[in-house]
């Protein structure tokens, strides 16, 4: 390995023309990922980008890294195979709310449960974009789409709750338009050992334009977004005047200095708390009562599947009495044919 690895974003761009719609949130997310990769100190040839099917899954074509555009819903399984067969690689799985949570829901939860060291980026635009506008498993109840012209009658998945519920150890949330913040989240996810899931709220300009506007509106966003940092108080608002408290078994947004609440009452974020009960509540926070939580919500150390896999093979090999072909031949009943 070179002593000094100095990459920039453009080292991760491919020659291919990017065919996402103008204004699509995917462009910004790609910038964040390319910048994060440049900062990781990994060799360019170590990276592999693996996707399923959907708009976001066109990603491998636009990266200069090795890539694999796989099967709808199966990227988690394919990425698991790549990582276990070649554990030295830095695997990025690019997927969407349809690919990961509808058709790929099964593989997704098992990847998370096994804790294979894969960085999974989940583009959440709450719609099927590639097939032109049908509802997805993250579409809000009642939403009008091409396949629900009178409103959906299903409740959506909350990806963070799903990850924690499946025994996941890393979950972060970001938003496409905040490139710098998203880049930082990706870098933290990549440095986490084990499966990391980053949900990025993404705007589909054509089939679900403005779906995240209530959160991103510049006029209100300071009051509607809570940026979490491990070990720091959960405060938000234009002047950091608001905070989150835990009261009567629930999270509550309060104004510091009002109704008797002081800075001491405000919760401190603990991303490393293993049970995840409060992190689960943070994932659930949403408008209008509570701001939406961004940043690394959960980051817990746990045994990593692909590392244990290699260790176990080495252990079994080391403790086996059979070291060579002669050992094998002499290991059981032998006889001479005369």
């Amino acid at each position, binding site marked *: 390995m070179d002593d000094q690895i100095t990459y920039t974003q453009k080292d991760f761009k491919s020659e291919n023309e990017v065919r996402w719609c103008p204004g699509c949130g995917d462009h910004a997310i790609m910038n964040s990922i390319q910048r994060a990769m440049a900062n990781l100190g990994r060799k360019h040839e170590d990276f592999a980008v693996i996707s399923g*099917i959907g708009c976001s899954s066109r990603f491998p074509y636009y990266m200069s890294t090795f890539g694999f*555009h796989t*099967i*709808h*819903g199966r990227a988690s399984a394919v990425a698991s195979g790549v990582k276990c067969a070649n554990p030295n690689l830095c695997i990025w799985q690019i997927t969407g709310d349809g690919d990961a949570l*509808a*058709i790929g*829901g099964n593989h997704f939860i098992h990847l998370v449960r096994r804790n294979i060291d894969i960085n999974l980026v989940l583009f959440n635009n709450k719609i*099927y974009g*590639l*097939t*032109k506008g*049908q*509802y997805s*498993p993250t579409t809000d109840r009642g939403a009008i789409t*091409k*396949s*629900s*012209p*009178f409103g959906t009658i299903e409740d959506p998945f909350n990806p963070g709750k799903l990850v924690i519920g499946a025994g996941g150890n890393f979950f972060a949330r970001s938003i496409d338009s905040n490139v710098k913040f998203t880049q930082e989240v990706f870098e933290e996810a990549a440095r986490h050992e084990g499966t990391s899931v980053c949900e990025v709220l993404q705007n589909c300009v054509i089939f679900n334009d403005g779906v995240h506007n209530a959160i991103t509106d510049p006029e209100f966003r300071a009051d509607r977004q809570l940026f979490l940092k491990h070990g720091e108080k959960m405060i938000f608002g234009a002047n950091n005047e608001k905070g989150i408290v835990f009261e009567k078994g629930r999270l509550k947004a309060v104004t510091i200095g009002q109704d008797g609440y002081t800075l001491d009452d405000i919760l401190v974020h603990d991303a490393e708390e293993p049970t995840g009960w409060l992190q689960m509540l943070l994932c659930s926070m949403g408008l209008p009562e509570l701001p939406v939580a961004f940043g690394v919500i959960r980051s817990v150390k746990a045994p990593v599947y692909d590392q244990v896999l290699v260790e176990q093979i080495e252990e079994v090999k080391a403790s086996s009495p059979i070291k060579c072909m002669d050992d094998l031949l002499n290991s059981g009943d032998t006889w001479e044919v005369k």
Partner: protein
Amino acid sequence: MGDVRLMKGNEVIAEAAIRCGCDGYFGYPITPQSEVLETLAIRRPWEETGMVVLQAESETASINMLYGAASTGKKVMTSSSSPGISLMAEGISYLAGAELPCLIVNVQRGGPGLGTIQPSQADYFQTCKGGGHGDYKLIVLAPASVQEMYDFVELGFELAFKYKNPAIILSDGVIGQMMEKVELGEYKPRWTAEQIQEISGSWACLGKAGRERHISTSLELDPYGMEKNNLRFQAKYREMEAKEVRYEMFDCEDAEYILVAFGSSARICQKTVEIARSKGLKVGLLRPITLFPFPTPIIRELAGTVKGFLSVEMNAGQMVEDVRLAVNGKVPVEHFGRYGGVIHTPEEVFDALKQKLIGE
């Protein structure tokens, strides 16, 4: 004339389902057939006829919802396009093994793998020769027009229930996406519980008291029992071959060379026949409408009078194997096709005919 409209093939599948009294549709969006689901969603049949429309989380879920729904003796269907049908293969085999009637629609696109979203006929093998595991057959209807997309929904259900077997409409991206005049039939009411009892009372899960218990299954661990089941299936398939073969012939009476083509390829070949006839060549077209049962007898008969067959398919040569089996070496059988989502022109077919068979 009845209710005449200008409609897309995919929209017509939805319209036909509602009008023929279909009870339920389970599907998942995929190009080039998403309009089936979308048309059903916008038409709101659950208010009009009580028909259920559900967008599943995958094609695997769709086919298994269909498996469950079919076990209740109701008229239920799904639709997809090639990669989605591959995902359904397991469920289709189970439906055939459990002898449950249902309707599947495949609006084919180019493969293999994710392939392309352009039209193709490369799923002939998958549809007619298996796809899923085991010795089973589907009743395969190949529409060549938007009108047939409409007509085959009702016909598909009729045959599926007649033989307690899944039926499939093997369409393609051309027929699914093109708009044509279509005459819509009368609305037929969904079957009542009493009608279902009469038609499928011996096996359907009806929720009615006083009936003998039945378990829908494709499992039989005793190999002799399983062979018996297979013999029953095979007898059914032979009966289909005897009674259900459907085909259409154009200018075959005096033909020296016959094009064999199904679906949109047959539409193209009609033009090729015109071109050939205008140049004094005696060329006809045989269009199989049922791909299983395949029109083997008529091809065998024609093989006694013509000089050769050209199987024209939007694939690398699939149906041609069945044509060759029917002809059994009597005269030459050649294949011509464009594939991977490319559609041949009538002129290309004519050139291939001259090159491969007529010898110019």
